[in-house]
């Protein structure tokens, strides 16, 4: 068979034509006769005991369900302490108390507004600071600490006494939303086999099936679930959002139902990025080697844990970033508060940690008389060295090569030489793991069938808009020795598949790519139907993750002298993520990730006042517009990862990690070393610093 070159090239997106012509079917596009529209009775207050719910008169064909209608009233997750519907203790404003279903959305909303609630209002735990107070009310019997994490390698205390420079600081990052274009949505019906059928905007069709099974008491075999076209996820559709409510309605009424979040519901009560308070202390030798680091992180997980404990673990694990440090002490606390639950968001704790560590590293570089690139090169981690928890780095690491390539870039030349005083430059390094981590089932199943037209490739993983469908089709075509156009990717449904877990943790290309290659091998050996299975390799030593991708991120900014606004003008990055499957798609993810974190750096935030968000629309939650995104350039270092599909590693979350510290360091260089420790950047801080200068 002729050698094909399907990987390493920018194949056109398979989903492109349907999306640009409007043929793609999103969940909210599904209109079927007799569909009940679902609205939720949500708590008006952040913290209360629910004494009673009085339903209004329900016209024929309208329904109201409360916790007593739910078979097993919890949503399966890490701790599974979140109810489908609160029945006694209300823990956040907007928490679901009852489900209303009616023939029209207007009627459903009207009935919701007529429901009377009997509440005993409690004092609000309005954030991390409140949660830590001795006399604050408890969200759960055991208090407000949801989980903790501690790790110590070497002897940090002793090592700090031997350091010639110690830098230290406290940092804060805001609650951020995912900002996907398509809000949370789900449609349910009973299919012709009598099964409960769920179609939704989801990152994990199987998790929706399990959640619905718990809530309805149905056996898994009597439920089927699939993703419609998904308009963005970024972690915010990893777990239950809208799905369980219409599932309950359709199960109990036998009627079709659907639930589509309004943008206000999405902003207020969709999942969130955790607000963080971090502290880091880093000790250096005279020549710039990091001898010791002591880092801590507090995260606000809101009213329920969801994936918070994993976010804390990953954030802490990534805290000392990409550096080889002999003595490392790490501490973290995840706190319950009366805020809407935070869960997965692209970066998963790593951007919060990098904001602290990378800024401090640049401050140390200035004090040591080292260049920002140089201090990173001195300390860059290599394969075979021990990570922050003591486990050995077992896989390829190309950080040093990425730093060298960045050093050759026009961006860095300009950063070193540009004499124009109105521009500031900074850089930072981001590191991001892929895979779900130790002790978490992380297996992908693939089925390939030979057809008349070519091959079908099936998996339950979902293309949530990032383009995995195209990258995986390229891998399949390459492995099968055929063309991409002969591959029919069928993704995101439970029917005919096995559980391959969530489309999350930058894992799809690696774990599904390897499963595809395995199945393709069997097809090439003559089978017409073949299955492939790949389990994501676990770290063998003391570590949570074992595969890491790296990015050197540069930022060039100017400052508006009247408003204090920071205006990024150029972001250049060098990315090391093994071999590249599709350069255009990869650049798309990188540029999108940078824009996402520019939002958190410059303008995005959810602020709570007594448990209620100040932000409730896209007019006041300030996402960057196309006019706010600067020139973006990226190049790659392709260091082959031998265990990856055609040498690739996962990277979807990577570009979000180092943006904020690169930008704040650039501002700092322009403002005489101004230390920015809080995001989004406060323009008043800039104006005040400008006045002094």
């Amino acid at each position, binding site marked *: 068979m002729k050698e094909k070159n399907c990987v390493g090239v920018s194949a056109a997106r398979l989903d492109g034509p349907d999306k640009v012509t409007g043929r793609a079917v999103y969940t909210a596009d599904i209109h079927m006769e007799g569909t009940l529209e679902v609205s939720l009775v949500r708590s008006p207050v952040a913290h209360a005991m629910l004494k009673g719910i009085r339903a209004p008169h329900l016209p024929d064909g309208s329904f109201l369900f409360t916790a007593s209608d739910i078979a097993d009233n919890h949503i399966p997750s890490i701790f599974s302490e979140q109810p489908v519907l609160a029945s006694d203790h209300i823990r956040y404003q907007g928490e679901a108390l009852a489900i209303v279903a009616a023939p029209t959305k207007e009627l459903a909303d009207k009935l919701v507004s007529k429901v009377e609630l009997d509440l005993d209002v409690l004092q609000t735990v309005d954030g991390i600071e409140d949660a830590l107070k001795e006399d604050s009310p408890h969200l759960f019997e055991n208090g407000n600490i949801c989980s903790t994490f501690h790790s110590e390698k070497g002897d940090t205390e002793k090592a700090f006494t031997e350091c010639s420079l110690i830098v230290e600081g406290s940092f804060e990052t805001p609650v951020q939303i995912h900002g996907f274009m398509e809000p949370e949505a789900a449609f349910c019906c009973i299919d012709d086999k009598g099964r409960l059928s769920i179609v939704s905007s989801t990152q994990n069709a199987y998790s929706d099936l399990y959640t619905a099974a718990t809530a309805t008491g149905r056996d898994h075999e009597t439920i089927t679930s699939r993703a419609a076209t998904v308009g963005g996820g970024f972690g915010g559709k990893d777990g239950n959002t809208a799905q369980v409510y219409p599932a309950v309605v359709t199960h109990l009424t036998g009627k079709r139902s659907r639930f589509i979040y309004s943008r206000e519901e999405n902003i207020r009560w969709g999942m969130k990025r955790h607000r963080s308070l971090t502290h880091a202390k880093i000790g250096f030798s005279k020549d710039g080697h990091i001898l010791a680091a002591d880092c801590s992180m507090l995260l606000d997980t809101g009213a329920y844990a969801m994936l918070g404990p994993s976010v804390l673990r990953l954030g802490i694990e990534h805290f000392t970033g990409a550096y080889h440090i002999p003595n490392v002490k790490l501490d973290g606390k995840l706190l319950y508060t009366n805020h809407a639950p935070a869960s997965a968001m692209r970066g998963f704790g790593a951007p919060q940690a990098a904001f602290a560590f990378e800024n401090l590293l640049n401050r140390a570089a200035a004090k040591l008389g080292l260049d920002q690139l140089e201090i990173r090169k001195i300390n860059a981690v290599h394969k075979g060295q021990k990570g922050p928890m003591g486990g050995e780095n077992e896989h390829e690491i190309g950080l040093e090569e990425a730093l060298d390539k960045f050093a050759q870039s026009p961006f860095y030349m300009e950063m070193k030489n540009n004499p124009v005083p109105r521009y500031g430059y900074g850089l930072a390094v981001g590191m991001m793991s892929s895979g779900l981590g130790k002790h978490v089932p992380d297996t992908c199943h693939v089925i390939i069938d030979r057809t008349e037209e070519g091959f079908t490739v099936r998996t339950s993983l979902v293309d949530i808009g990032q383009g995995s469908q195209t990258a995986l089709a390229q891998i399949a075509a390459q492995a099968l020795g055929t063309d991409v156009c002969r591959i029919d990717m069928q993704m995101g449904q439970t029917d005919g598949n096995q559980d391959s877990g969530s489309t999350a943790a930058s894992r799809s290309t690696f774990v599904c790519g390897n499963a595809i290659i395995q199945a393709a091998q069997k097809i090439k050996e003559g089978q017409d139907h073949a299955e492939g299975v790949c389990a994501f390799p676990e770290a063998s030593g003391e570590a949570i993750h074992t595969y890491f991708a790296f990015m050197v991120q540069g930022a060039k900014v100017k400052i508006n002298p*009247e*408003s*204090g606004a920071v205006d990024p003008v150029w972001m250049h990055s060098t990315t090391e993520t093994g071999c590249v499957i599709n350069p255009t798609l990869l650049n798309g993810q990188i540029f999108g990730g940078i824009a996402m974190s520019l939002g958190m750096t*410059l303008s995005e935030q959810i602020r709570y006042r007594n448990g209620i968000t100040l932000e409730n629309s896209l007019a006041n939650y*300030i996402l960057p517009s196309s*006019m*706010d995104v600067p020139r973006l350039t990226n190049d790659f270092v392709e260091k082959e990862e031998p265990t990856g599909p055609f040498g690739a590693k996962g990277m979807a979350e990577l570009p979000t990690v180092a943006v904020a510290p690169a930008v704040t360091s650039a501002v700092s260089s322009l403002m005489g070393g101004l230390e920015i420790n809080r995001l989004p950047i406060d*323009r*008043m801080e800039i104006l005040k610093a400008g006045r002094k200068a």
Partner: protein
Amino acid sequence: MSYRLHIPKTLQEAVQIKKETGGTYLAAGTDILVNHRHKDDLIALEKIPGLSSIEEEKDYVRIGSLVTFNQLEKSSLVKEKLPALWQAAYNTAGPQIRNRATIGGNIGCFSPASDSVTALLALDAEVELFDGKTCREKLENLHFLDNTAMITSVLVPKRFGFSAFEKVGKRNAMSVSVINMALARNGSEVRIATGCMGPQVILCKDPSSVLEFLYPINDRWGTIEYKTAVARKLLDKLTKEAGL
């Protein structure tokens, strides 16, 4: 959202419907349909002819009330003769909204953050109103709250040799103003209008006392300290540009 929509074809007909129903005049709806969804009667003006043109008169530029921000932005007459208004139009919202939103609607929505009103106040604009008969009023004297007449056109004097508009928002497009300011100068006549620093756009004719008339509040967009600091900087910038 449900309401009765009236679509009159003449000014007279529109006024008649207004008298009968007490309804609200609707231009493009970029404000009303988003922020004021609970109206019983809306009177759409878009089928009434003659409200959508920009014309040069001897001392004024006459702008029909249904002229869109996009039309203002594309007009070389506005750009040349009324730069403050052109800059305000150019910096309002984004292209989709500028394609719909009208100057009359922007005046009528009576927001302290209306970019065009800040420019128009500085430029000493007048409005022509119709309520069965036509009358004319200086924008600075217009009492919106007890006025039920329809704005049919805006008359902007050409006498200001210098005018400029500045806006600070939270992002570079699709952004409500945190503060905006316009300055128009004709020799010794100076007019400075500031938005978002009180319940309505504030006009001041003496550059040295502008800051005394501003009374910002702490809100989601910024603190009093921040808004005051920016007002001072914008004023410095505009007065310098105006040669004051």
